[in-house]
Structures are given as C-alpha cells and as structure tokens.
C-alpha cells in the first residue's frame, strides 16, 4: 500500500515540479506591463473633465474603470456612454448613478461681458482652456470648445458666468424616432413628447390657422 502511495506522490511531484518550473520560467520570460484598455475607455468618455464622476478628470476615471470602478458615474456622458462602456467591457449596462448627478442636455458657458471684471479666475478653472481674456479685460467663452462643465461658474467672484442649454435650431435639428404603439394603452408615451415631431403610428395633429 505504501509503495503505491509513494509512487503516486512521486509521479505527481515530478509532474508538478516540471510544470511549476515551466510556469516560473514563462512568468519571468514573458512578462508584460501596461494596459491599452485605459485608452479605449478614455476615448469613450465625453472629456468634459468636469469631475462629476468623483475623479479629477476623465482619464483618472478611465483608469479607475479599468481597475473595476463602476461605469455609471459620468453624468455628461449619460446613457450613451454607459452603454458604450458596457459594450467595450462586456458587462451589463447600469442606470446612471444619481449621486454623481443627472444626465443633462448639452450646455455651454456664457460670460455676461458687461459684468466681467477680468479677474482671470475662470480661465484658471477651465480644464480645456475654452476661455479667452487677459487680466482686467473682458473674457469670453469660445463656444465651440466649451464642454459645459460649469467649473468656471463657481470661482467667478461676480457671478457673471451662465451655463445655458444649447437649444436645437433648424440647422441642428434631427428627426425623432417614431413612437411605437405596442404597449398597453396606458403605457403609450404621450404624443406631446417634445421630441416627437411626427410619426406614422400616431397621427399627431396640430392646430393650424387656415388661410
């Protein structure tokens, strides 16, 4: 009986030692560092740099996600970003974490120029250098570069910065998706939904001043 056991142990020991050595060799020989995933995650974040996620900027959050942080903490990105991240990381999308703020419409900062005292505080606060101006001179926001992060609002001593929602105009307008009537009647979204322009499924009618 004991010889059997000893043979068994010896064989297994031999195998294990060989395999262990192999793995030890490989661990050393094929060592790699770095992770390209962070870049991919970062590319999906909106780069608003607003810190609402609880991280100082998008990249730190990207790194945190790579280390297992939840993906639902970026309000500016909203659902679209969460879905994109979920897709990339192959996890279930979660609803936006309300503790970090709610998803908002696209916004920009506007400086009320006659009130601006030229203190340059906002310039220092803007993470993307979207504010132009020199000391003691009126400042302006470059609208196309502003991410709407509202970090400049707080530091302004005279509160002359407004964050305004970008209203769609005729040139930025896009079609809304049709409304589908396959829910029970009480679940049908109301036809007065602002995004609904016209649908085939629900002939929405508008008052018209005829002639």
């Amino acid at each position, binding site marked *: 009986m004991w010889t059997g056991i000893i043979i068994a142990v010896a064989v297994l020991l031999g195998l294990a030692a060989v395999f262990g050595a192999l793995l030890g060799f490989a661990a050393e020989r094929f060592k790699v560092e770095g992770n390209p995933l962070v870049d991919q995650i970062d590319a999906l974040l909106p780069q608003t740099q607003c810190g609402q996620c609880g991280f100082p900027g998008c990249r730190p959050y990207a790194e945190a996600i790579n280390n297992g942080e939840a993906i639902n903490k970026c309000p500016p990105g909203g659902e679209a970003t969460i879905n994109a991240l979920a897709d990339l990381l192959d996890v279930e999308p979660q609803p936006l974490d309300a503790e970090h703020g709610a998803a908002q419409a696209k916004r920009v900062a506007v400086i009320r120029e006659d009130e601006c005292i030229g203190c340059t505080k906002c310039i220092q606060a803007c993470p993307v250098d979207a504010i132009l101006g020199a000391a003691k001179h009126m400042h302006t926001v470059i609208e196309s570069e502003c991410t709407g992060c509202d970090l400049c609002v707080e530091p302004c001593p005279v509160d002359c910065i407004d964050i305004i929602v970008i209203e769609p105009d005729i040139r930025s307008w896009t079609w809304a998706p049709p409304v589908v009537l396959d829910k029970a009647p009480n679940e049908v979204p109301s036809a007065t939904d602002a995004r609904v322009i016209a649908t085939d499924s629900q002939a*929405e009618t508008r008052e*018209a001043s005829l002639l």
Partner: protein
Amino acid sequence: MALVQQSSPHAHRARPTSRVMLWVIIAAVPGLLAQTVFFGWGNLINVVWCIALALATEAAILKWRSKPVGFFLKDNTAAVTGLLLGLSLPQFAPWWVSAVAVFSAIVVAKQLYGGLGSNPFNPAMVGYALVLISFPLAMTTNWAAPVGLWQDAPGFGETLSAIASGQQTAVDGWTMATPLDEYKHKVGSHTAAEITIHPTFGNFVARGWEWVNAAFLAGGLVLLALRIISWHIPVGFLGGLVAMSLLFGTNADQYAPLSLHLLAGGTMLGAFFIATDPVSAATSHQGKLIYAVGIGALVYLIRSWGNYPDAVAFSVLLMNFAVPFIDYYTPPRTYGHHKARRGLPTRKQD
C-alpha cells in the same frame, strides 16, 4: 381644423400583415381539403382546435405582458401558427398533444422572445418538435391510414371522440405507418419492390400523400404569385433535397427514391409554408438560398440516416439557429458599392 403631421411617405400600399397572414391561411386550404379527402377528418379537427387554442393562448399571454390584446390578435399570426400545427400533427393526435404543441409554440417560441417578429425559431416547428420528442408514441402511431385502406372508416364524430378521448394511441386499423416511416425502417433489409408492396405506398408514390403535397404545392404557388413569399426558399429547399438525392444515388434499394422525398411527408408544406416563415428565415436573397438549401440537405440527411422519418421540423429549426449568423455574412451588395460589407462593424480603434 387641424392638419395631420406625418413623416413621408404619405401613401401606402394596402396590404397589411393581417391580410398577408390571411392569404397564407387561404393558400393552405387546398392542402387541408386534400388531407381531409385522403385522410379523414383528423386534420380538420386538429386545425380548428389548434387555431382556437393558439388564439386563446396568445390572448392570455398578451394580457399577461400587458400588451394590447386586440391589436395583436388581429394580425392573424397566431392563427397561422395554429393552422400549420394542425396541418402537420398526426391525424389522431390526442387533444393534449396538440395543446402542448400550441402552448409551447405560442408561449415559449414566440411570446417569450417578444412576440410577433422577434422569434428566432419557427413557432409551429418548435411546438411540433417538442411534442415529437416528448410523446414519441402518440406522435408516431396516430397517422391515419389513407382513405380506402381503413377497416371500418371513422366518421367525423368518431374521429372527434378519438382525439378528445386523450388516448395515446388511436384504434388499430384506422392508423398506419406513413410511407416515409415504412421506407425508412425497411430500406436496407428489403428491396424497394418489397417495401413498396405496403399499401401505404399506393399505386403512384405515396397513397394520399402525393395529392396532399400537390395541393400544398398549388397553394404555395399562389403565395409565390402574390409575392408573399419569394422563390428562393422553396426552390432552395427542394433544390437541396434533389441535389442530395442525386448525390447519394437514386438506387431505391439503398435510399428512398426522390419521388418519395418530394411527395411524401411534409415536404411541400415545409417548402412553401414553413421554411418560408419570414420571421425566422434569412433575410437577403443569398441568405435565403443558403438557409433553404441547408434545410433541404438536412431533411435528406436526417430522413436517410437519422432516427426521424420526416425531418422538416428539425431541419427548419436547425437552420433557424443559423439564420442570424447567415444574415451577418450575406448582406446584399448595395448600389454604389463594390462588394457587400459582411460581418460585424469593426470597432473603431484609435
């Protein structure tokens, strides 16, 4: 006065889904009639029972999912599913076999996936396959013998009570092995001549079955003419079957002859009514051909070497399974492109 606001187009061709489905039902009538003429009342009773049950089940499940019941019932698709089950189940299948089939077709195969349009598998065939493997006894012994071979032919009332009695097997003498079954079990040990002595083969190909198949073929041609189905699927299906048959030889002592493959069992019903189920079939022309040829080949394969004498249900399900994949790789070539873009969009990598 208010003006209607709507996105284009403002004109629509008037052939709604419900009408399409109605046409499918109408086109199946010749086949049903032929079945009734050649195999008695069984199919008719089954069809009525299955349709009623299908509608009731669909209504119940829609209610449970809090969907508008009337709106969806009116599309007639549940009726088509019930109809096709009724047409394909054995004539003397006990009522509960049909019920299980209808229930699994409507609930499991259709509504669990979101109802009309979303089901990846053909509901009727799911129901059929499920009862076939669940109740092999009831599903293999209840085929009616063709009219003329009945000893003591059952009338409508007797058929109805046989079905309603719920017995797993019908009265001996009313039933008979189907030609495919018979051939399958004797081929190899018997010669073709010996096999076809059996009365189920009749004088031509397969007594009764040949006419039923012809009737379904006729109905299918109507659907083709109405452009409710496109030619790719029936042609692919039958083409695949014929090609396999020619490939493996026409020696009737070894393999069932082509005529039997084409005119017995559910071949025509399958080719024109079942494989063509638009929801679970492939999308593009090329995809449809691949899908249908696959079904035809599998039918031959399983009929010749597998355990199941008629393989339409399994073949259809197997190819349904491949459909999403086929669809990814057979998009049509779009105007202005050199070749079709196959597969998935590659993720943008920067």
